[in-house]
């Protein structure tokens, strides 16, 4: 009887994939909300030190970033292995920091220009000499609020 032919053995019923887009969209929205766009690609090694007494940097639009660290492998041939400063997308010397801060400050809206923070993202292997020079530059352009960006963790891990 054709009507009552059994289904073939071992034929699994197809799993419905109708809800797959919903799941993927959910993931998508999750990542869209918790992440932020990369604004510059790193050209220096940037393993931050750990600290426990940290404060969050609120309001990304009020922050100017300065990266310091040894150039990554691909740039080492040109720039050597001494720690360098990276401003936006290029390497810079210490004396360019001041003008960089002034230029960045001029780009921000008027009402934010006095409340800017400079975030120093410095590799833990860097020496304080360079940092001191940067700090001196920042003082000269009156950018006194700094944030030493760190990872959250036990500060004594730095010493090993």
């Amino acid at each position: 009887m054709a009507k009552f032919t059994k289904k073939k053995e071992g034929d699994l019923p197809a799993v419905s994939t109708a809800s797959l887009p919903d799941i993927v969209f959910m993931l998508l929205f999750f990542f869209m909300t918790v992440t932020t766009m990369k604004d510059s690609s790193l050209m220096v090694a940037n393993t931050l030190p750990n600290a426990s007494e940290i404060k969050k940097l609120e309001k990304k639009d009020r922050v100017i970033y300065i990266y310091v660290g040894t150039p990554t492998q691909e740039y080492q041939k040109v720039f050597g292995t001494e720690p360098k400063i990276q401003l936006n997308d290029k390497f810079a010397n210490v004396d360019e920091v001041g003008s960089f801060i002034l230029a960045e400050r001029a780009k921000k809206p008027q009402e934010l220009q006095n409340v800017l923070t400079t975030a120093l993202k410095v590799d833990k292997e860097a020496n304080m000499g360079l940092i001191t020079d940067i700090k001196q530059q920042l003082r000269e352009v009156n950018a006194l609020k700094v944030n030493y960006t760190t990872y959250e963790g036990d500060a004594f891990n730095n010493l090993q």
Partner: protein
Amino acid sequence: MPRRKGAPEVNAGSMADIAFLLLIFFLVTTTIETDAGLDRMLPPIEPPEQDVVIKQKNIFTVNINRNGQLLVEDNLMEIEDLREAATAFLENGADGSCTYCKGKKDPSSSDNPTKAIISLKNDRETKYSTYITVQNELVGAYNDLRNREAQRLYGQDFTTMESKYLDPETPSNVRDDLKDKVKRIQEMFPQKLSEAETTTD
């Protein structure tokens, strides 16, 4: 007349592919932010109008040498002991005007927390990670004292109060309430951490 059907159904089979494509795009171009750190104020470049005379006993000097060793008040010290020493110095209260201090009232140490200054000096070859650890311990000493007083007065930690106060998502009436409290605690233990220019020799 044949009945007209509704609009033909759009095949949604490729929706998942499109969504995956978007998902992967966002995964690649974005980062989960790790932006938190130690907030510090640099000293202004113009020297103050008149010279301020500070008694030597109100200054707590911390020197870091190029090997990462600490010289605290002319004695060698391990970084692990720094927080305790800084706390003891800050709340020493030698002149007795600080009612909430629990220090030893040692006459050769600081008069009261509003006068106590921590001076941090480092060598040009000090490693940044060591410097951050020392900064962290000194800020930690202030935070410990402030937390203690905040617990006593308001029953919560100063650090949580402050982060709540600074968080833009906190409703404004809560923030106004916190503002005075945060300010009061900050005035009890003002953060006076001076960083002189690095010595070159």
